[in-house]
Each structure stands twice: as structure tokens, then as C-alpha cells.
């Protein structure tokens, strides 16, 4: 069905190869997971498999890729895509029309199918994926799970022989991830499925075969039963596979108090948060979990005073957050956003790190000391480097560094695991726990239940904008896992 022979590829102007002499054969009806850490060349391999390389991305490509017997070098992209459907990581990024029905029909119209055939296929996928209520809605207005379903339906309508999924469910909550896997499981008969991911645990239950790539080469190729988390970490180049664990919970000494917090984004929509009350203790790691759209990020933004509550208030050390000026607030709490690209704008790492510190009104000497401290802590070597040239993971670390440099008492983290591989998260957890032991408090909103279980002293479970449960990690997490397994 799909074969890769002695494939090497390097991007234009890059002096290193991203894929080096890869050989791969995937048979009909196989479900294969290609697992590798960030920057291992998974996405590049995916681009080669579906013909994006060499047709849309030019570079130095050696070797051959054949999709259902068609060599991607010799055949136009239009012929290759008749056999292979692709779903990218962010469904939002691949929606090109303004209505769900048009989105599903888009690919069908492009491959010159007669109108009757288009209508028949539309009816078929609409029924199969249960989309009849969403047809006239704008794709961007759907929930994350619905978006993935529409993306899948629009690809499956083209009836590909191969389905290529690039980090398909990383933006979904655990229940959404399970449902997405169920959908794949239901339709994988007669379909070759290739999943590119850094999350081995996610694909373990569905894959017939796992290929682990690291340092541009295949490190493992076999059934998933022969691998476990520790082994994957070892293959990813992380030697210590032991789980990280937080210290005993600190005594109850509230640093932040949330009182009756409610919020909604516009007059027409329902409350994103409804009468939320809890406290964050000094020296504590508080995990916030909940399904997509339950209000986790909104809660963090309100806690930091970035949004104005509809009702209720946030108090830090007894003072209302909205009434504290920037320099005073910045030493109390910092926030790490989901997407590091939203904050990086300076030409060098040094300037990026010093931006917040200058806003604090610190002197040059103090700024230099703090930059040196965070650089040492997070292993930044070349501070004159352009931050935009860093990998996604490094940019995320830089964002964390800008927050740490301001030395806040409590740090709010919004889905720190998003887009990060298990090796990065292992190091991240270790650093977080080290900081916690030195007295820093953390509030972490995340879908990664393992991360929350490893590092949190207490967990707050949000459901539909309300606090469904809050308490010690071991008590709440069993209920949370039950909720997502339902």
C-alpha cells in the first residue's frame, strides 16, 4: 500500500537532514503509529507520505515514496490525494469554508465528482458521523470534538485508501480522545491508518504496529505490547523513566481566594464560569481539570485579572487582583499561555527575557542577574539567538523563563503539555517540582491527567463552568478518571 525506500530529506537552506535514509513498508488495512519526540521528523515524514513533499514543499529529497503504487515524485498531487486523506493537528487550521456542509463537500467538488455522487457521499458521511444538526453551522463555532468529527468526515467523504493523522487528538480532552479513537476503530476495516504522534499511550490501544523514530532513524518497529512508558522514554533519549511525584501538601494558608466568580464572553452566550469559589494555598500545586470548554483557561485569565468578572472577585493576599498595578501583581503571580507564539516579539532571547523585567522597573544589574539565573535553570545557552528560530518546545520554555524571571509567588500554567512530547514533559515536571519545593505555588489547567496526578497536591474539577469537585488529588482523580471513561 505504502512504501518508503531510502528516503532522505532536508529543508531548503537547512544544513541538516530532517529524515535520513528511512525505509518503511505499510501493508493494506494496517494501523500504524509513528511515534517520536518533538523535532524527530514525524511531520516531515507525513508530508513525504502524502505528497506535500516534493509537490508543495521543495527541498533536497532523495529516495522514493510510493502511495498505492504511485511514486510521489512522478505523479501529480491530484492523483496521489485520491488515495490518501490527511487530518492535521489543529482542525481549525484546515477548515476552508464557512459552513459544515460546504466543508464536507469541498474535497468532493475538487475531484470532479458528479453532483449526484457528491450528494450521495454527503448523505452517507452525514449519517455515519451524526452531523445532521451541524450542517448549516460555521465550523469555527463548533466544539473541539465536533471540529475533529467534521475534519474526519470531510476527509472520509473522499473515500481514501489511506488515512494519515498528524497528532489528531492533542487538543481534545481525554473523553474526546477516546471517542475519536472509537471513530477510527469503527472505520478502520478496509482502511490503512497512519497516526503520527508523540503520545505513545494514546495510540497504544489502537495500533497494530508502532514505529518509534528519534534522531532521524527508526529506533523500534513492532507491536505496541513490546513497549511501555519507560521504554518509550529511553527511546526518546530520556534515561530516567521514573514518575515524578510532588512532596506532601503544604498546610492550608490561602494565598489566592476566588469568591463567587462568574463570567461570560458575550451577551448572547451562556455563562463560561458560574459562581466559582475556591482557594489556592501558599506553596501548593493546584491542578484544574475538566472537559473542553469547561472554563479552565477562562478561570486562569480571570485569576490573573486579564478578564473582568461578571460577578465575584479574585483576592491575592487579601487584595483584589483588579486593583493591583502591574509591578506589584507581577511579583505575586505570572501566567504561561498555551501558545508561546502569542508573546514572543523581540529579536533575541535576551531581549525577550528582559522585556518584563524592564517593565518591572528593575536596574540593569538586577535584570542581568535574573536572566542568568533563569537561563541556567532552563539551559539556554545562546541568548543572542532569534527566539523565532527555536523549536516549539524551546519557545514554550522561553515563555516560562520570561515568567520565572519576574519571580512571582504563584505561576498559572494553561495547558503546558500542549504539543509537547513525553521527554519534554518529564523534564518540565522535574523543574516544576523543584520550584515548588523552593516555595513557589502553581495552578495548572490541563487535559493531561497523568501530569495533574503526578504534580498536584489538590485538584479542582470544572464541569460546565461550575466546580464539580475540589479536594486532595488521590480523592478527586479517581472520580475524574471515571468521568472521562464514561
Amino acid at each position, binding site marked *: 500500500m505504502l512504501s518508503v525506500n531510502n528516503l532522505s530529506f532536508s529543508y531548503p537552506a537547512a544544513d541538516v537532514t530532517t529524515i535520513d535514509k528511512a525505509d518503511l513498508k505499510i501493508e493494506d488495512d494496517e494501523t500504524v503509529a509513528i511515534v517520536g519526540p518533538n523535532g524527530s521528523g514525524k511531520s516531515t515524514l507525513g508530508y513525504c507520505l502524502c505528497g506535500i513533499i516534493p509537490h508543495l514543499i521543495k527541498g533536497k529529497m532523495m529516495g522514493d515514496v510510493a502511495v498505492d503504487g504511485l511514486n510521489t515524485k512522478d505523479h501529480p498531487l491530484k492523483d496521489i490525494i485520491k488515495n490518501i486523506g490527511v487530518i492535521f493537528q489543529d482542525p481549525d487550521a484546515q477548515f*476552508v469554508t*464557512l459552513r459544515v456542509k460546504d466543508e464536507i463537500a469541498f474535497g468532493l*467538488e475538487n475531484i470532479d465528482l458528479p453532483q449526484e455522487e457528491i450528494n450521495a457521499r454527503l448523505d452517507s458521511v452525514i449519517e455515519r458521523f451524526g452531523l445532521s444538526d451541524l450542517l448549516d453551522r460555521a465550523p469555527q463555532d463548533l466544539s473541539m470534538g465536533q471540529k475533529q468529527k467534521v475534519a474526519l468526515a470531510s476527509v472520509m467523504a473522499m473515500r481514501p485508501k489511506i488515512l494519515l493523522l498528524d497528532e489528531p487528538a492533542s487538543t481534545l480532552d481525554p473523553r474526546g480522545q477516546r471517542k475519536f479513537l472509537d471513530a477510527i476503530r469503527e472505520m478502520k476495516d478496509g482502511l490503512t491508518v497512519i497516526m503520527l504522534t508523540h503520545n505513545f499511550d494514546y495510540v497504544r490501544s489502537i495500533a497494530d504496529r508502532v514505529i518509534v523514530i528519534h534522531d532521524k532513524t527508526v529506533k523500534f518497529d513492532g507491536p505496541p505490547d513490546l513497549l511501555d512508558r519507560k521504554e518509550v522514554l529511553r527511546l526518546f533519549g530520556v534515561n530516567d523513566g521514573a514518575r515524578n511525584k510532588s512532596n506532601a501538601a503544604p498546610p492550608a494558608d490561602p494565598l489566592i481566594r476566588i469568591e463567587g466568580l462568574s463570567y461570560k464572553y458575550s451577551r448572547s452566550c451562556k455563562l463560561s464560569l458560574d459562581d466559582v469559589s475556591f482557594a489556592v494555598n501558599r506553596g501548593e500545586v493546584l491542578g484544574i481539570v475538566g472537559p473542553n470548554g469547561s472554563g479552565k483557561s477562562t478561570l486562569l485569565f480571570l485569576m490573573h485579572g486579564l478578564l473582568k468578572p461578571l460577578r465575584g472577585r479574585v483576592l491575592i493576599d487579601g487584595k483584589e487582583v483588579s486593583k493591583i*498595578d*502591574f509591578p506589584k501583581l507581577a511579583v505575586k503571580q505570572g501566567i504561561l*499561555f498555551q501558545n508561546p507564539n502569542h508573546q514572543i516579539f523581540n529579536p533575541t532571547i535576551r531581549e525577550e527575557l528582559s522585556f518584563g523585567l524592564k517593565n518591572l522597573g528593575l536596574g540593569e544589574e538586577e535584570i542581568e542577574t535574573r536572566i542568568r539565573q533563569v537561563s541556567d535553570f532552563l539551559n539556554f545557552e545562546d541568548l543572542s539567538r532569534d527566539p523565532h528560530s527555536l523549536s516549539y518546545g524551546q519557545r514554550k520554555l522561553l515563555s516560562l523563563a520570561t515568567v520565572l524571571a519576574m519571580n512571582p509567588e504563584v505561576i498559572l500554567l494553561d495547558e503546558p503539555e500542549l504539543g509537547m512530547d513525553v521527554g519534554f514533559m518529564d523534564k518540565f515536571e522535574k523543574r516544576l517540582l523543584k520550584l515548588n519545593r523552593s516555595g513557589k505555588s502553581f495552578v495548572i489547567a490541563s487535559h493531561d491527567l497523568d501530569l495533574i496526578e503526578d504534580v498536584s497536591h489538590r485538584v479542582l474539577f470544572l464541569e460546565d463552568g461550575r466546580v464539580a469537585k475540589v479536594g486532595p488529588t488521590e480523592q478527586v482523580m479517581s472520580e475524574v478518571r471515571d468521568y472521562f471513561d464514561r
Partner: protein
Amino acid sequence: MIDKLIGKPLHDVVYELDPRVKLIWLISCSSVYFTDDKLLIAVITLVAAAMFIFSGAHKTIYMKAFYYIFVFLIALFLLAMTESTEIMNVIYALTIISKWLAISISSIAFFVMTKPFELMTALRSFRVPEAFVFSLGIGFRFIPIIFEAADKILMAQKARGLYSGKGFRKILRIPMVIKALIIPLIIEMLNRLWDMWLALMIRGFDLGKSRKQMKLELSASNLTVLIYSFAIMAACAANYFLIYLV
């Protein structure tokens, strides 16, 4: 964010009308320009206003702006009255305002209260080139993305003290504020464009290809507005020919 900007009601008679019916309604309301029949003008204006008020469309932000303009016109009208006490002048001023109201309301219905994909379908049905229509669609697709990204970027920079400083120092920081917003926004947009381009190409996109057209569904509300629109167009035309030509 984009909802805040548009403030559209979710289920509204005017909002749900077929865009082509809205366009015909706009043309029919515009035909009021060619008549001086006071009764006809009053009917067209009152029906247009009633459609908005009873369907809930008057609650939108656009209509709020419209009310301000309306108040301004009333003020103009009162001013006209102070200059002349002749009753005919007063009626003339009222006529002009009524005509303007009818055309404005129907224009808002077409241009503002039409779902983007319906507007595209309407443009396609009027044989507007696909390259233009598709580009317009991509533009519409990007509006919420830009707003959302800008929102997040501003929050991320605010958390690092972008807006700190007071008085003159704050004014001096304006170039920095613009830079801190523009650079991440451009990078985000370029990334999004790249992803969208790949998604387009991998699904065999061909700019010249014609797209499926929406059928004109003659639901009760569409049919009523259509019949009414043709009736008032006929009435305006008859009135025009009778008075000015005969």
C-alpha cells in the same frame, strides 16, 4: 469576540431570510426613491421597521448605531421645521426621512445580517467570478481567527506589563505596544495561512472550479417577503409611470 462585534440574534426572521430574497427586498425598498406617493412610502417604511423590530434584529449593535443616526435625522427634521412653518415642507422632510429609513433597513438586512456563506452563495448565483468569491470566503474565515489571536496576544503582553507606566510614559510606549501586537499577530497569521494552504492543496483545491449552489428555499417567510417586494416594486413603478410619464 466576533459575536460581541456583530451582536447578532441567534434566531431572527430577517437573519434567516434567503440572501437573494433580502437582495430583492433591498431593490424593492430602493424603488421607493422613484415614487412620491405618501401612502406607499409610509407602507414600505413601516413594514421595513416592523420587520426589524418584531424579529428582534433591532437588538443588534448595528441597529443601535442606526438609532443614533435616526435621532440625528429627527434633529435635522426639527431644524427644517424651525426654518419653515409651511406644512408641505414638514411633510417633504418626513418623506425624505422615510425613504432613507426604508433603504437603510433593507441594506443592513442584506449586507450585515447575512451569514457569510449565504452571501457567497448569493454572489455565486449572480455569476460573480469564483476567484473573488472564494477569496472573500477565506477573508471571512480569517476574521474570527485574527480577533481571537489578537485577544490572546494582548492578554499575553498585558501579563508582562506591556501597558505599565503612567501619563506621558504610557504615550511613549505606543510604538512598543504596536510592535508587541503586530509581530506575533503576523507570525500567527502566516502560520495559519500556511496550514490553510496545505489543507487546500491536499484536498485538490482548484480556484477555477465552480461550487455547489444553495437552492432558493421558498419557506413561508421568504415567500411572503418575496411577494411583498414584487408588489411594492410594481406599485412604485406604476406610480412613477402614471405621475411622471403619463
